[in-house]
């Protein structure tokens, strides 16, 4: 379906993940204490068959080699004559938790699943959309110290 990278990020007005780099790899830094988020705009390919989407977050611990990060993803369908884009209209957030790799610098891949229909804001093949990705830093399940560094997001049909 597609992929997003740090350079594709669209920062919201406040509490946004920060662009950085690690050994030349662009990263988006998600804080450990405050909930930061960022948005990505895409178009759902015309071969989408209604099977729902799996959004996989590829990330590293900036300083930690243990602990969990809870990710929250939400989708906004931006098709013609639908939402007024002057206000956000994301569907219900879906979450998944991943564990930091025991070796600093190694990547963890955490999959967030979205069933077709309401979960993806009724997104259909060929529709523009936004994906909002947040680290649920205030959630008790989010235990990892320090920033979570996102290097890529992949979106595939489930």
């Amino acid at each position, binding site marked *: 379906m597609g992929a997003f990278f740090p350079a594709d990020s669209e920062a919201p007005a406040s509490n946004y993940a920060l662009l950085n780099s690690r050994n030349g790899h662009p990263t988006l830094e998600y804080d*450990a*204490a405050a909930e930061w988020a960022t948005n990505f705009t895409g178009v759902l390919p015309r071969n989408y068959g209604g099977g729902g989407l799996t959004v996989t977050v590829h990330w590293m611990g900036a*300083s*930690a080699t243990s602990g969990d990060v809870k990710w929250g993803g939400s989708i906004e369908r931006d098709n013609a004559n639908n939402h007024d884009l002057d206000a956000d209209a994301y569907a219900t957030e879906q979450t998944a938790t991943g564990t930091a790799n025991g070796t*600093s610098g190694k990547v963890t891949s955490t999959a967030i699943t979205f069933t077709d229909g309401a979960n993806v804001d009724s997104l259909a093949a060929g529709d523009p959309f936004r994906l909002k990705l947040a680290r649920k830093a205030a959630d008790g399940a989010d235990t*990892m110290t*320090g920033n979570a560094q996102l290097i890529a997001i992949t979106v595939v049909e489930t």
Partner: protein
Amino acid sequence: MAVLSSADRAAGCAKYMRDLCAARETIGPALKADLQAAFNALDAFMDANAAAVNNAIPLPARTVLTVPQKARLLEAVIFQRYISGA
């Protein structure tokens, strides 16, 4: 001065984590709750021993320096002892 409020302790620990990330330091197997507990314990220790720290400063510095200036002096000593050249 009493111990920090829960909000201030959380803010202080959050800053500590951000500083570690900025320095690209690796943290061993400790979770956010572990670091917060450590921060809280040191805050409590400082509260319990503030008078002793103050009395360790000889005159005239003890009376000439403001409280924030004494705090920065303590920070400078800790930095030189444990961080500089580490």
